[in-house]
C-alpha cells in the first residue's frame, strides 16, 4: 500500500512539474499574472508530493518491507535503524529520489521566499527548474522505480553494502546533493535571464545567496566524503583523484568561480555574460557528475553498454540540458547589454584572475577525468590517469591562484593600488619567509617543495588576518574603537577572511600529511611493540565480538608516549555474514591535537598474529578543518544583511564603513 502510494505521489509530482514547466512560461509571455502565479503553487505542491514519495520509501525501509525490490536488495531486518534510514539513498533508485526531492526543495524555497522577485522572473525561474525536475522524474519512473514489488516476497533482505553502513552515508550524500542540486537555482536564473533577454546587478543579488548556499553544502559534502574515505577504507588516503571524486570537485571549482564573478556583476554591473555562462557550466558539471556516478559508465564501459537504458537516458538528459542551454546562450547572449570594462589592477581584475585560474584548473580536472573514457571509446586503449597527472597540472595552476588570494580583498574596486596592497602584505610575506626558514631547518634539507608550500599557505592565512586587522584598524586605534569597528564590519568581510584562510589551513594539512606521514606495516602478535613518530604501541591481544549484523575481530593496542600510557586503540575487522562474508576494516583513530595515529588491520596469520598498518599523520585534521572554515565563512557571508535573500539596498551606515576601508 505504502509503496503504491509513494509511486502514485511521484507520478503526481511529475504531473505538477509538467504544469509548472509550461503554464508560468506561457503566462510570462502573455504578461498574465494569474498564469505566472501558477509557478508558486505548483512548485510548493510538487515539493509536497515528492516529499511524500520520499517519506514512503523511508517508511518501507524502516519497516523492512522486503516485498519491495529496493528494500530487499539494500536492507536487512537486523540492520540498525540509522542505517535502515540512510540505506534509502545508499543505492541507485533511492539516491535519485533524494536528488529530485532536493531539487523540489530548492524550487519550493524559491517559491516560498522569492516574493520580492519580479513576477515574470520568478515564473520563468521556476519553469526552468521544473524542466529539470520533469526530466529526472521521468528518468526515475521509467528506468529506476524504487517502488517496484517482488511477486514472491523473500523473508530476509540482502543487506546494504557494509562499507556504506557508516554514519558517513547519513551525512555525505545529502550534503553533496544539496550542493550539486543547489546550483540548479543559478542555472534556472541564468536560463530565465536569457529567455527574458534582460539582466542587471539585481539579478546577481538574487542569485548570489542561492549559489552561496549550494557552495557551502558542496564544500562540506566533499570534505565529509574525503574524511569518510579516510577512516573507512582503512589505508589512510583522503583523496584519490578518482573520477567519482573529480565529479564533485569540478562543480565546486566552477561554483567557486561563479561566486566570485557574481560579486563583480553585483557591485560593478560587469562580467554579465561570463557569469551567465558560468551558471550554466556549473550546473552542467553537476549533471555530468550525476551521469558519471549514476550511469555505471565508470564501473564498466561494459555494464553501460549491456544495460544502456539508464546510462543513455541520463546521457540524453545531459545532452538536452547542456546542449540546449549553451545553444540558448549562443543565441541570446549577444542580446544582453555588455557591462563596462575595467582596469586590470582592481578588485574586479583580481576576481577575473581568480575566475581564470579556477576555470582552467577545472578544465584540467575535466580532461583528466574524461580523457581515459574518450580514449577507450575511440581507440579501445585502456589507460588510467591518476594522481601524478593531477599533481602535474592542477597543483601548478593553484600556486599562482593562492599567491593572488590575499591581494584580491586588498585592492579597491575600479582602480586598485597593487604597490599599496603589497606593502600591507609585507608582514604576511615576512611571516611566510620565517616559516619557510624554520620548516626548512626543521626538515633538515629534504624536498624544498614542502616548506615552500607551507610558506605559501601561511602567506594566505596571514594575508586574510591582515586584511581583517586593516579593516578594523587593529593597533592603530584604541581597543574600544577596534571593537566597534569589528562589530560594524560587514559580515561578508569576515566571511571572505574565513574562507580565504580556510584554503591556507587545508593546504598546510595536505602538505604536512603527504610529506611527513610515517607508517609501519607488519605482523604483530600479542605483546609485540612497535614505535612510530615517538609513540609506542603494544598489541594487547585479539578478541571476537558479535555485532547486530556482523562478527568482528578486535585488536587492542596500548599507546604510550615516553613511557606514559596515553590511551587504547581498538581497530577491528568486520565480517558481514548477511553479505556473503564480505568484510570491512574499521580503523582506529587517536587524535593528538590536529595530528592523528591511525591503525588498521590486515589478515590474521597462522601463528596468532595479525597484519597491521600503523600511520602517524601529522596535522592531518587541518585538511578538513580548512573546508569547514570555508563553509563557516560562507555562512557568515550569507548572514550579511546585504546578501540576505531579498535584502533591500544596503543601508547608508554600512556603505560609509565600506568607504573607510
Amino acid at each position, binding site marked *: 500500500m505504502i509503496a503504491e502510494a509513494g509511486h502514485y505521489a511521484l507520478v503526481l509530482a511529475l504531473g505538477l512539474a509538467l504544469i509548472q514547466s509550461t503554464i508560468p512560461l506561457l503566462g510570462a509571455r502573455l504578461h498574465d499574472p494569474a498564469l505566472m502565479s501558477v509557478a508558486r503553487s505548483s512548485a510548493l505542491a510538487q515539493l509536497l508530493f515528492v516529499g511524500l514519495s520520499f517519506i514512503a520509501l523511508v517508511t518501507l525501509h524502516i519497516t523492512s518491507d522486503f516485498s519491495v525490490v529496493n528494500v530487499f536488495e539494500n536492507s536487512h531486518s537486523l540492520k540498525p535503524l540509522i542505517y535502515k534510514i540512510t540505506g534509502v539513498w545508499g543505492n541507485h533508485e533511492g539516491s535519485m529520489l533524494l536528488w529530485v526531492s532536493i531539487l523540489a526543495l530548492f524550487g519550493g524555497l524559491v517559491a516560498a521566499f522569492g516574493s520580492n522577485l519580479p513576477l515574470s522572473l520568478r515564473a520563468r525561474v521556476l519553469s526552468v527548474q521544473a524542466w529539470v525536475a520533469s526530466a529526472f522524474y521521468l528518468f526515475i519512473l521509467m528506468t529506476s522505480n524504487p517502488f517496484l514489488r517482488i511477486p514472491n516476497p523473500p523473508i530476509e533482505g540482502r543487506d546494504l553494502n557494509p562499507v556504506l553502513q557508516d554514519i558517513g552515508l547519513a551525512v555525505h550524500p545529502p550534503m553533496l546533493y544539496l550542493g550539486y542540486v543547489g546550483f540548479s537555482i543559478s542555472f534556472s536564473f541564468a536560463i530565465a535571464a536569457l529567455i527574458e533577454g534582460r539582466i542587471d546587478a539585481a539579478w546577481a543579488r538574487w542569485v548570489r545567496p542561492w549559489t552561496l548556499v549550494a557552495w557551502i553544502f558542496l564544500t562540506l559534502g566533499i570534505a565529509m566524503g574525503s574524511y569518510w574515505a579516510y577512516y573507512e577504507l582503512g589505508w589512510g588516503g583522503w583523496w584519490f583523484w578518482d573520477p567519482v571524486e573529480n565529479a564533485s570537485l569540478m562543480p565546486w571549482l566552477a561554483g567557486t568561480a561563479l561566486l566570485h564573478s557574481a560579486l563583480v556583476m553585483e557591485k560593478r554591473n560587469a562580467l554579465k555574460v561570463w557569469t551567465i555562462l558560468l551558471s550554466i557550466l556549473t550546473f552542467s558539471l553537476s549533471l555530468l557528475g550525476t551521469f558519471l556516478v549514476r550511469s555505471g559508465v565508470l564501473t564498466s564501459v561494459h555494464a553501460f553498454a549491456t544495460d544502456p537504458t539508464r546510462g543513455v537516458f541520463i546521457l540524453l538528459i545531459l545532452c538536452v540540458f547542456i546542449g540546449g542551454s549553451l545553444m540558448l546562450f549562443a543565441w541570446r547572449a549577444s542580446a544582453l547589454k555588455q557591462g563596462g570594462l575595467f582596469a586590470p589592477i582592481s578588485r574586479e581584475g583580481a576576481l577575473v584572475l581568480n575566475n581564470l585560474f579556477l576555470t582552467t584548473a577545472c578544465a584540467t580536472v575535466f580532461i583528466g577525468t574524461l580523457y581515459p573514457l574518450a580514449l577507450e571509446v575511440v581507440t579501445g586503449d585502456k589507460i588510467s590517469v591518476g594522481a601524478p597527472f593531477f599533481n602535474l597540472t592542477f597543483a601548478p595552476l593553484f600556486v599562482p591562484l593562492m599567491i593572488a588570494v590575499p591581494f584580491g580583498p586588498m585592492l579597491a574596486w575600479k582602480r586598485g593600488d597593487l604597490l599599496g596592497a603589497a606593502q600591507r602584505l609585507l608582514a604576511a610575506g615576512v611571516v611566510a619567509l620565517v616559516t619557510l626558514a624554520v620548516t626548512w631547518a626543521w626538515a633538515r634539507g629534504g624536498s624544498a617543495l614542502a616548506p615552500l608550500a607551507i610558506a605559501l599557505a601561511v602567506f594566505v592565512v596571514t594575508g586574510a588576518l591582515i586584511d581583517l586587522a586593516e579593516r578594523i584598524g587593529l593597533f592603530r586605534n584604541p581597543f574600544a574603537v577596534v571593537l566597534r569597528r569589528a562589530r560594524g564590519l560587514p559580515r561578508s568581510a569576515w566571511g571572505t577572511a574565513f574562507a580565504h584562510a580556510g584554503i591556507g589551513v587545508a593546504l598546510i594539512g595536505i602538505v604536512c600529511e603527504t610529506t611527513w606521514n610515517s607508517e609501519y606495516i*607488519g605482523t604483530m602478535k600479542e605483546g609485540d611493540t612497535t614505535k612510530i613518530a615517538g609513540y609506542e604501541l603494544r598489541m594487547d591481544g585479539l578478541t571476537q565480538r558479535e555485532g547486530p549484523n556482523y562478527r568482528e575481530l578486535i585488536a587492542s593496542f596500548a599507546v604510550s608516549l615516553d613511557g606514559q600510557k596515553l590511551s587504547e586503540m581498538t581497530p577491528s575487522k568486520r565480517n558481514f555474514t548477511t553479505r556473503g562474508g564480505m568484510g*570491512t576494516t574499521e580503523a582506529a583513530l587517536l587524535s593528538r591535537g590536529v595530528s592523528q595515529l591511525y591503525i588498521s588491520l590486515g589478515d590474521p596469520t597462522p601463528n596468532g598474529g595479525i597484519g597491521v598498518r600503523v600511520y602517524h599523520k601529522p596535522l592531518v585534521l587541518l585538511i578538513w578543518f580548512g573546508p569547514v572554515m570555508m563553509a563557516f565563512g560562507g555562512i557568515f557571508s550569507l548572514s550579511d544583511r546585504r546578501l540576505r535573500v531579498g535584502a533591500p539596498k544596503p543601508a547608508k551606515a554600512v556603505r560609509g564603513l565600506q568607504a573607510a576601508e
Partner: protein
Amino acid sequence: MSTDKGPDMTRKQRRLTMIGCSLGVLALAAGLVLNALRDSIVFFSTPTMVSEQHILPGRRFRLGGLVQPGSLKRGDNLAITFEVADNNAKLPVAYKGILPDLFREGQGIVAEGALDAAGVFKADTVLAKHDETYMPKDVADALKKQGHWKDDYGAKAASDTVASQGTTAPGGVR
C-alpha cells in the same frame, strides 16, 4: 597580472591585457596537460598481452586478471606472492603489504607496478572495489573479449553500483 598603465590606459589596451592574460593561462594549462599526459598515464595489460608484447622491466603498467586459485603464498613480514591469470597466460606477482579486504583467490584484481629482470611483476598497489560482485572494469572488459566471462558479473555490477563516492579502495602501500 600586468603592470598598471595608469588611468589613461585605453579601452583597447584593457581588453588586450585581459585577453593576453587569459591566453597566457590557457597556454600554460595546455602545456601542463600535454606534458602530464605524456609522462604520467599508465597503460593496462593482461597476462596474455604481457606475454605477447615485450614490456621492458621497470616500465610501469597496470596488470589485470584473476588471482589464480592455489597460487597465493604468504611469506615473512607480509610478503605475498600470487599469480594473476587470464585464459591464456599467467604472470607471477610479488607484493609486500596488506591486501584489500576483497582480495581472494579467483577474484579479479588490478595491480600497479612493473616487471623486474626475472619477469616477476612487482606490484606496489593492489586495487579492488568494495563490492563483492564488482569486477574491476578493465578486467571485466578483457575477460569478456576472451570469452571468459560469466554474464552474471555485468548485470550485478550494474545493479550494485554503489551510491556515493569514495568507494574505490586502492589497498596497499603507496
